[in-house]
């Protein structure tokens, strides 16, 4: 019984723990990661799109939902993704694995720490 309780508690707490791991990322470092890895194609200025959609307020947003961005692939439109921190982390790691047929020309970011930082940065933008 005790073991089940622990398992149940772990399952209930997992999302919070997981989100905290991104929140533990360094947003200041994440701004640099964003400039190095993302900033050519994405903007964090509210309402600003580049070749890729704007990323201001991306956490919690449904994929392919920026209203005035028309460059979405069919793959991302049909993905049904909501950009939780976990999902964003998986996507940044291997974009083509998470969204086959996507347009984003990015091979992925292997460094888990850098991903955590950039997600913390995106989360910090209010």
């Amino acid at each position, binding site marked *: 019984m005790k073991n089940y309780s622990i398992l149940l508690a772990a399952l209930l707490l997992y999302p919070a723990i997981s989100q905290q791991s991104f929140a533990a990322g360094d947003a200041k470092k994440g701004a640099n990661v964003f400039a190095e890895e993302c900033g*050519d*194609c994405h*903007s964090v200025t509210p309402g600003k799109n*580049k070749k890729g959609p704007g990323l201001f307020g991306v956490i919690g947003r449904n994929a392919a939902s920026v209203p*005035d961005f028309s460059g979405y692939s069919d793959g991302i439109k049909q993905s049904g993704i909501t950009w939780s921190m976990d999902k964003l982390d998986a996507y940044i790691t291997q974009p083509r694995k998470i969204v086959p047929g996507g347009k984003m*020309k990015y091979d992925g970011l292997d460094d888990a720490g850098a991903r955590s930082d950039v997600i913390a940065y995106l989360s910090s933008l209010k």
Partner: protein
Amino acid sequence: MSVFTANFPKPCGRYWLQFFRNIACAVSLFGISASVALAVPSYARQTGADCASCHIGGFGPQLTPYGMKFKLGGYTDTDGKDGKIPLSAMLVANWTQTAKNVAEADKVPRYDTNNNAAVQEASLFLAGRMTENIGTFIQATYSGVERLSSLDQVDIRYARTMELFGQESTFGLSLNNNPTLTDPFNTLGQWRFPYTSSDFNAGYGPSPLVESLGGSVIGVNAYTFLNNGIYAELGLYDTLSASTLNKINAEDIGQFKGLGTYWRVAYFKDMKRDNFQVGLFGFNARVQPDRNDLGTANNYFDLGVDGTYQFLGNREHIFTLNASYAKEWQKLNYTYGNLAEADNLKNNINQFRLAGSYYYNQTWGATAGIFDTRGSTDRTLYSNSLSGRPTTTGYLLQADWTPWGKENSWGAPYANVRLGAQYTGYSRFMGGSSYLDGDGNQRRANDNNTTMLFLWMSL
């Protein structure tokens, strides 16, 4: 996205045999340069990207990896919005002072022997996406120095990006009028530092033929960029007819015998924070200098190696280094054999260029460069050289300020301007520390040291 420049050798006078331009331009100094700077903010409007995404320092022509890929993709990337007009305009104005007044015979017509201000270029561009896979970079220029309009640069591309063996690769075709215009790196003739130079500058010595053909030829190039790492290009060129050149106000270098062949391979590695490239390039052509005396041609064979390093980081502190070395083997069947205007049947030119730049906040820039050109001793060909050699060496220093061009800049992406100062110092000119100027008087190489202040705007 903005500006670009070429540093063509200085034309040596309207009546000079144009086919000698690559080897003898330094003989007659202070001629008028071919078109130089290019600027195309219409690409920024098309993509939604700021100029600094594609260009080091927020102003062309030094390309970032993003800018390289945009070019190789055929100028077709877009932010998905319709209604973008693929037109841009550009203006380059400058003031130039040389250490000592130039000889009367060497001065630019209608200008003084020193301290000249000029609207050097006013250009219009048709530059942008035409269809999903076709894009253009076409420039028409009015030269305020020559007081002529010309069709300057033409690069019309078809490109497709696809998966090949699981790797993303781009394949493309280019119809263009200049062999090095198509290159995505900033080491070859068309796109190498200095990105703007004064028409009143003495130039950088003789250049290989591959750098001396802009506007005079038409070529079709096939290229590929495999797995974002291997770049390969092959182009075939022919000279335009004399009547066509006359219509577009381009220079007549003579007529090719057969086709000229341009090739290029490079390895590129993009680590995002920094990147590097190493490459090889070559060009060969047989040129019949006089269209009224066809049959015997001068043969040119160019071979070069180049490399680039860029540290981009978070774009606050950017460093770049560009280097190239080219050697040209000439067989002057016509010049030596028919005209006896050279001492040697076979000559060569060796050209080395190096430039390093630093940009702070994509706004404040400093660049230092070295030019070093050497070649065979030929007292007839290089008749103004006291040693008979074309050796021209020196350095360039430039400081510039680019206030806009960033994502949230005032007036973006319409307002683009760069203000700068450039200094050219000569240690040797046409063979040594002294040479004969156009009036036949000895002139020191450092008498040609040049200070230029420039204003470069694009819309």
